[in-house]
């Protein structure tokens, strides 16, 4: 009887210890109903729209929200994460600044038990973010490139303005574009330079490119802000009727510009779909769901003068 009693105590204590060592979500303390939205920059209206849409959806689902601006700087993003992780947020809706550099921040959040839902841009890792809802930039650029080839009549010289180095979207859009255009030997790229997704830089880079290559007939830009800047430079040089400008994003001013037969085309992303899906996923996580797709591509649609009436800034009518 004494031995049985000792054995029972041992079994009970070991069981209790192992149970408490298990990473059991049912044992997690419920966090406050607050979502943090961390966005790469608030200096670009597209990202402002993305962040505000995510916040609005989270609020509609019953959460307090706060938007954190990473100012396109991984160090600032890290500070944002540190502040968030001590403030009892239940989820982070995250637009990364750098596909590699941002991984560590998401890891910290995971270790702290805070789910992270990436929006628009990815991190180069699996199994760390809870889910990543990403723009299918490569396929979108393939469609823009096919139209570019058609408009350029398969010949001519052109330049390319790239986005931020380190952002996978920069590479995806450029690679998608070249996967088509490089098959046409009479279409020659004569210059390529980064303008950091920025309108003013886009204008400066375009001005400089026009000095060196005055006879170009096409420009592909990795986003609409750079495309609008490039168009401004072309107007200044009196070449806006000769050089066709192609952007990417589906920003409000780009859509208006296409309607006015200024910009030739853009790729419409759907920040509303991505932002709202992230907020919905975070809500489902809060309510106990744990299986989410690792990555979800969201289509990008080609917008030209032919179909622009179906679209408005950042989405479809």
């Amino acid at each position: 009887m004494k031995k049985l009693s000792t054995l029972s105590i041992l079994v009970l204590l070991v069981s209790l210890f192992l149970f408490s060592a298990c990473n059991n979500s049912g044992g997690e303390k419920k966090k406050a109903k607050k979502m943090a939205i961390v966005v790469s920059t608030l200096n670009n209206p597209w990202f402002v729209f993305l962040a505000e849409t995510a916040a609005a959806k989270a609020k509609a689902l019953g959460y307090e929200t706060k938007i954190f601006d990473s100012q396109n700087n991984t160090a600032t993003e890290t500070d944002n994460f540190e502040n968030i992780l001590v403030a009892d947020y239940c989820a982070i809706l995250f637009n990364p600044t750098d596909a590699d550099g941002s991984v560590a921040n998401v890891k910290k959040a995971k270790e702290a038990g805070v789910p992270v839902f990436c929006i628009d841009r990815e991190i180069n890792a699996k199994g760390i973010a809870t889910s990543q809802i990403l723009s299918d930039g490569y396929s979108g650029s393939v469609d823009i490139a096919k139209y570019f080839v058609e408009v350029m009549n398969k010949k001519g010289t052109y330049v390319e303005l790239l986005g931020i180095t380190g952002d996978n979207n920069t590479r995806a859009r450029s690679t998608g574009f070249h996967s088509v255009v490089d098959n046409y030997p009479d279409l020659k790229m004569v210059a390529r330079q980064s303008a950091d997704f920025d309108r003013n830089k886009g204008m400066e880079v375009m001005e400089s490119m026009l000095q060196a290559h005055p006879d170009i007939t096409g420009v592909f830009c990795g986003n609409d802000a750079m495309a609008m800047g490039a168009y401004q430079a072309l107007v200044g040089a009196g070449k806006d009727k000769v050089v066709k400008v192609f952007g990417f994003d589906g920003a409000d001013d780009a859509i208006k510009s296409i309607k006015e037969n200024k910009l030739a085309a853009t790729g419409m992303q759907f920040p509303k779909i991505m932002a709202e899906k992230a907020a919905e996923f975070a809500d489902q996580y809060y309510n106990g769901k744990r299986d989410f797709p690792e990555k979800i591509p969201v289509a990008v649609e080609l917008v030209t003068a032919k179909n622009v009436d179906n679209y408005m800034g950042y989405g479809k009518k």
Partner: protein
Amino acid sequence: MKKVIKYIVPIVVAGLLLYNSVYFKKLDAKKAAIENELSPNAFAQKFWAEKFVPYMDSAVEISSFLKMAKENPEEVFRRYSKTQGIGNASFFLVKGEGIIKAVNEDEVLVAVRSGTGEIKVKLNTGIYFGNAVRDVTGKISMGDFSNTMDFNSVSTELNKIVHMQVITPLKAKATKGAMVQFIGCIEIGQEQMIPEYANILPVKINIIQ
């Protein structure tokens, strides 16, 4: 009591060591991890040989497909379509047999007998830039890759395989009047209806002169 403590400590330590030294991982996840360490080209070659070619047996006969699509498009999408993510194109795998009516620069036109009539089919022989080959089986997902560039590169590599193994020989051998058996992919964009005639990327061809 001392005896109880004397036994508890080693058992707890042993339990902790055991718990942290054993983990369970799904076999599929491990296999997928190994596959995705391959380069996009190697991944594409392996996928083509081991998964895509066997999958071709599930192709739907083209005239039945188009008839069903006319009568009940929702059912056709539900039963046969494969799509990646949100808003992307849907892909269908179809097969058929018919007579070559014309050989043009980027297409071979085929008439497929259907009931008492004919269906016009266009086999694309130009450069293909889409994701049909990667996505039509539903066996590759963006989440299988840490980096979406690899996911995109796999699509490009698969297109190269089809171009080399199917389209180039088709262009060389296709002649008006010859019988052709084909398996191919149909791509339908978001919100598009299934067209009355089929525009197909061929993935397997047999020409009978």
